[in-house]
């Protein structure tokens, strides 16, 4: 098959999705009216205008900075902790149920504690975003390390690899696809956590703008910001998903049974 065909096919779905989402948005606007859902075209124009304004940029910068720092902590710390928990069986068994329980509770209730510990502002947002993102990274990394096929390690020994060689040529390639899947989910949850943090008791950032817009009943601004965040989230996720799929290309298909 030609490369041109492939690019066309790769772009077809996202474009169709974007078109149908805008169409759905327009329909919602027709049903709900301007006071609830503003139409796509004016909203996007408003977003464009907002991005150009000097008073908007500090908020965007605040949110981006908080997110990036939280992401760095979630990814770096998560992989590190995950490798330890995966490598040491007992430690992993002790920690896993705690992590799973923490994943399934409304972590927002812990936000006041973080605010008391870090004070209002950037560090609290970073901590809260990282708290959301780090759990999936740890869980995925731990499982990736745990599930490394023992035969690979035996093959490495049979080929008389040094521990460093085994690490670099066997363990890293064997665990990378799973770890990356964890990072992808960690990315989304870090963003979720950062946004949650900004929606409560915040004085700067996109979340703060969202909350102030409620009082002004400024639907256009609310939608603009929500759409901006969603576009960023979806685009980043699509890129990460593409890399994820590429890394998993050698993995066995999950569907059982003969073709």
């Amino acid at each position, binding site marked *: 098959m030609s490369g041109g065909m492939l690019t066309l096919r790769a772009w077809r779905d996202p474009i169709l999705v974007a078109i149908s989402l805008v169409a759905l948005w327009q329909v919602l606007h027709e049903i709900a009216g301007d006071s609830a859902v503003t139409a796509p075209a004016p909203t996007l124009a408003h977003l464009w205008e907002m991005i150009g304004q000097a008073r908007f940029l500090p908020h965007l910068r605040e949110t981006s900075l908080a997110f990036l720092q939280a992401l760095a902590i979630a990814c770096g710390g998560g992989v590190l902790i995950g490798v330890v928990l995966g490598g040491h069986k007992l430690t992993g068994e002790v920690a896993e149920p*705690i992590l799973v329980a923490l994943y399934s509770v409304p972590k927002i*209730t812990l936000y006041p504690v973080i605010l008391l510990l870090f004070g209002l502002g950037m560090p609290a947002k970073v901590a809260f975003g990282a708290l959301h993102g780090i759990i999936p990274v740890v869980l995925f990394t731990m499982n990736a390390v745990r599930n490394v096929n023992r035969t690979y390690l035996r093959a490495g020994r049979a080929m008389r690899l040094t521990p460093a060689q085994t690490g670099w040529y066997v363990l890293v390639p064997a665990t990378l696809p799973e770890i990356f899947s964890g990072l992808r989910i960690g990315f*989304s949850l870090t963003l979720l956590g950062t946004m949650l943090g900004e929606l*409560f008791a915040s004085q700067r950032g996109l979340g703060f703008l969202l909350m102030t817009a409620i009082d002004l009943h400024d*639907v256009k601004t609310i939608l603009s910001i929500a759409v901006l*965040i969603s576009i960023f989230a979806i685009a980043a996720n699509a890129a990460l998903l593409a890399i994820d799929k590429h890394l998993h290309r050698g993995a066995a298909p999950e569907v059982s049974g003969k073709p």
Partner: protein
Amino acid sequence: MSKAGWIRTLLLVGAVGALELACRTGAIAPTMVTAPSKMVTTLIKTLQSDEIGMHLRHTLSAVAIAMSIAIVGGFVIGFVLNWVPFLRRAFSPFLAAYYAIPHFAFYPLLIVIFGLGPVPLIVLATLFAMVAMILATMAGLDRVPRVLLKTARIHRLSLIEEIWRVRLPAAAPHILSGLKLAVAYSFIGVIAGEFILSTSGIGHEIAFAYDNFDNPRMYALILFVLGIVTLFNMAVFAWERRMLRRRGA
């Protein structure tokens, strides 16, 4: 209990003990964290007051409604999407990107549309929980081994029988794990919404206590929420395990 279980229990007990000690000795100021013993005593006092029952009822009823819609709706939608390839192709890109979006960014919009009250909370939690159920239902039905479907044909089952006797039981483990997620996400959705902005509910009470510098009450309620949600999640988890244990899943 397993060795890991004992260590975990000791670790948690030790952590609570250390916190208690640190608070009693003043190493941690009461403006930061209250002592665990005080959290418990305040919690007991708080639970004896009438208005907390009202908040709890509001939260739990919103969670129950969101959970029911998410589970039933998610199952039906997942089933239909799995059955109709055209719809599945159309919707799968949405589903793949769905959990990348920070849904709570749309909560302000929901408040503007539905007004402050239980409705935006239920909508938020349902939106958050339902897709987990859809994805799990589809994954479960996708992974029904072909040989079991062939077996159904050999026994000349009707379509309804095939679905009821073979497809659904074979997909059950995935569907149950989706259900588990839908329960957890419903709690997260409702309580997070209440916390950010609402007029009642447990999440609102925590935020209210924070705003009023009422640390003992805030910590008591945090303990309460984390406790009941964890208990509820564990109950669902244990139920799932019991359903699956004999199947060696």
